[in-house]
């Protein structure tokens, strides 16, 4: 299927000949073919690269008038970034890549969709500022992480999650109309998430983000935080043997290992009560080992050579303070808590990796090494609730996952989940990450089965463990657990996008 000539020409007139293509080889670059999404294979009718909000408006009007579905994307790493049905165009937003403003005084930045973490983070750091960089890796779109995902990240123990920092939003609706939310709606600037009247931010953003199902977000403002720890960063080495250090007595990383998730829970809660620590996370042991190695072979050697045990239930703690005295205080409290909860320091030869790779804490660097085992991977759950609730979910993973690890359907790492507390333990996020042998077709089928088992486990136990917010089949099943929000999502979708052209995921 291809676009009618007059439609193509109308789109071309908007963006210019250079920024639209229906060449097969260009479309090929964005066809689904990733290891984790081997099961659809759709072709977009065209790829359009608009350069401004005005062009996005005109493009969407043409799409709306002609019943053409559109999918917005930037980095294209997620499965929502591909044509999922016939009669779809992809709207690549990478040309809209300006940092419009960094306001250090009022601590906000206005950005367009094409700005990546690896661009924004250093700009802010130069100004003594930071932000909540979602756990997606350096090439991810900052805007997409604030608007189309939960925005969970490694430092949310003290900084909270990204969606708490979403301020003014400019969004083009499927019919081309522009909606501005928060203080922006009344021309009062970008600084505030909510303005007079109903909070449209919640409608647009919801819990997880709408993946362009309600239109295309073209600009946002995000709240900024002061930099934690020292401003001096030392980096060097040649890839893949890089290092990024914070040489300061006010920055220290400790990694402890625990016997049981309940002990981790107790430690997280006590650390939160004490309000110490910049980063606290129960990290995945498989990615942790992968990040510390430079090849799959080296990974297998280390995993089987003691890392699996040394990191079986690891709690990573980054202390970043304003003074040495404060550091001494936080260290004292931390070690007392570890004594009480049974946390044991992992061998220094492993722990020191974190000292050498502080980019892990800044922009969640080296995360893609989780894909090193051939690319078959899948994040499952991704929900949030209290620390206690999340740790209970973590414990219950063991109720079903061994059917998959013990039979070789997924990599044998049954404890491969992370829990990140936020706001000093008032809330937490969970993610179960599974890797499978992509070269084994039977293993791929096992993933679908695992997702169903995981979801059924959540439904049986009334766990708030899954992501919600996108109109997909999973949501239909989980909606009742979340006050029937799927019914509301459907009504909102039908009201805003009656023609169903904006990234119809279902």
């Amino acid at each position, binding site marked *: 299927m291809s676009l009618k000539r007059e439609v193509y020409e109308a789109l071309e007139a908007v963006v210019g000949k250079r920024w639209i293509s229906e*060449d*097969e*080889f*260009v479309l*090929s*670059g*964005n066809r689904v*073919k*990733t*290891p*984790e999404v081997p099961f659809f294979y759709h072709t977009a009718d065209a*790829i359009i690269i608009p350069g401004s909000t005005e062009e996005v408006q005109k493009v969407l009007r043409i799409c709306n008038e002609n019943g053409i579905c559109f999918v917005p994307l930037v*980095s*294209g*790493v997620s499965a929502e*970034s591909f044509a999922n049905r016939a009669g779809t165009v992809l709207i*690549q937003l*990478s040309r809209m890549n300006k*940092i419009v403003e960094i306001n250090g005084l009022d601590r906000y930045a206005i950005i367009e969709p094409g700005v*990546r973490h*690896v*661009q924004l*983070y*250093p*700009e802010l750091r*130069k100004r003594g500022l930071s932000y909540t960089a979602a756990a997606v*890796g*350096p*090439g*991810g779109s900052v805007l997409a992480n604030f608007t189309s995902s939960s925005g969970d990240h490694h430092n949310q123990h003290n900084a909270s999650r990204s969606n708490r920092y979403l301020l003014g939003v400019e969004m083009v609706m499927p019919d081309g109309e522009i909606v501005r939310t928060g203080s922006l709606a009344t021309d009062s600037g970008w600084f505030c998430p909510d303005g007079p009247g109903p909070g449209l931010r919640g409608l647009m953003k919801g819990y997880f983000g709408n993946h362009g199902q309600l239109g295309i977000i073209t600009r946002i403002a995000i709240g900024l935080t002061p930099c934690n720890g020292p401003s001096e960063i030392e*980096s*060097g080495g*040649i*890839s*893949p*043997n*890089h*290092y*990024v250090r914070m040489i300061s007595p006010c920055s220290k990383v400790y990694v402890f290992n625990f016997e049981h998730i309940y002990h981790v829970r107790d430690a997280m809660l006590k650390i939160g009560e004490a309000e110490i620590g910049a980063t606290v996370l129960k990290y995945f042991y498989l990615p942790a080992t992968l990040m510390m190695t*430079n*090849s*799959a*072979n080296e990974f297998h050697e280390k995993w089987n050579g003691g890392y699996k045990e040394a990191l079986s239930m690891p709690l990573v703690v980054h202390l970043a303070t304003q003074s040495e005295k404060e550091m001494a205080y936080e260290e004292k409290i931390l070690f007392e808590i570890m004594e009480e909860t049974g946390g044991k320091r992992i061998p220094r030869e492993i722990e020191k990796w974190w000292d050498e790779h502080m*980019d892990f804490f800044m*922009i969640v*660097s*080296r*995360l*893609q*090494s989780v*894909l*090193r*085992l*051939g*690319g078959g991977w899948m994040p499952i759950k991704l929900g949030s609730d209290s620390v206690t609730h999340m740790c209970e979910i973590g414990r219950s993973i063991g109720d079903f996952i061994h059917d998959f690890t013990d039979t070789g359907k997924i990599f044998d790492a049954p404890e491969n989940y992370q829990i990140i507390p936020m706001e000093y333990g008032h809330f937490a996020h969970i993610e179960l990450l599974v*890797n499978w*042998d*992509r*070269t*084994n077709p039977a293993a791929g089928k096992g993933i679908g089965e695992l997702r169903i088992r995981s979801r059924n486990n959540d439904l049986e136990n009334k766990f708030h463990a899954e992501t919600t917010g996108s109109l997909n089949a999973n949501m239909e099943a989980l909606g009742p657990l979340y006050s029937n929000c799927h019914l509301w999502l459907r009504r909102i979708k039908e009201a805003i996008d009656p023609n169903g052209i904006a990234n119809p995921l279902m």
Partner: protein
Amino acid sequence: MDKLKKYEYSMDSCNHCGQCKWILPPKMHGWDFAEICPIHRYHRFDAYSGQGLLNISKEVLNGKLKIGEGLEKVLWSCTMCGACDVNCKSVRDIEVLETIHTLRTVCAEEGTAPESLLSMAKKVEETHNIYGESHDKRFAWLPEGFEDDKDSDTVLFVGCSAYTHPEIALAAIKILKAGGVKFRLLREEEFCCGASLWRGGLMADAEKLISRNMALFKEKGIKKIITACAECFGSFRGIYPRFGAMEAEVLHITQVAAKLLEEGKITLKTDGEMQKLTYHDPCMLGRLSEPWEAWEGEIKPYGLHVPEKKWRRGFDGVYAEPRAILEAIPGLETVEMPRNKEDALCCAYHSRETDGDMSACTAEERIREAKAMGAEKIVSACPFCLDALSDAMPMEDISVLLARYIEEGGAI
């Protein structure tokens, strides 16, 4: 297609994470100068990137895309600089560049190579150099009466670029002479190194020329090859081993010069010149010069390569020696560009004929980056980078720069 199938694991393993397009995190600098793929930076469509070309390769392999129906446009737009490969391999075990090169080879065998490439190949065949200049003039720049050490088992390989930049070859000779290094020239027996043929995917032509050169080195009993040109250096280290064992040690003139400086065998004068400059890493001296080693084996579940594979991740390029030379020259202040060493932005010279707009735009970007760091001059070690970048900013080859400062042994 069997050749392409060899890289199917790489094609299938890409998750579109984008690391092939963006600067390595330890080098992150700011909004600007963050992109490392020349073709993606210019064209913006994801097809124009390592990730996109892996997708295209897969679809050629499975028959969804047909050779000769336009994919050549993106394929030969690629500068083959290897930045995507190094960046991807900072976190993955995927052969991005080898896959792109193999697709080129397959397309070239199907007769879809660009005319400009075929024309260059014809020149190499007829004149043994990429410019189509008379072979008789390959060493025409040598001063009258110049004598090399004809019994030496060390050869200075000057490369085709001596036609256009004889000053580089002359500077290399001056450095070696000043340092007391005995060497010989191959003179009329020196042919093109073949890098352009190989890069273009013209494998039969490349193999013929490379085999001829390797046989010559053997026949002459060459134990050490010093190259004046980054292209030849990267070729001997990264390409030649694919066609047989390279028995000779291969060094670039900057490696030799840095050692001579360290050992005090050459001394430098101060000429009162104060300059702030930046060093541009040529791809073929940096990431692409990493030695190539054959690997045949099995990829077991979860990426285990049996036997273990030695990956080319850009680690073993020549980065330190040029910087040591600049450090040693009195009166110079060097500044680093954000995209440096294994993550340097390519000058895009090699796509001039196939994607001129992209090539020019990339060169402009590199110059903008140098100027933004406050540099007054770019120094590099590759004649092609010199051609790409010198139009808009003062630029000098590092050998030529060093030779100007050499205190003794100045006369050839």
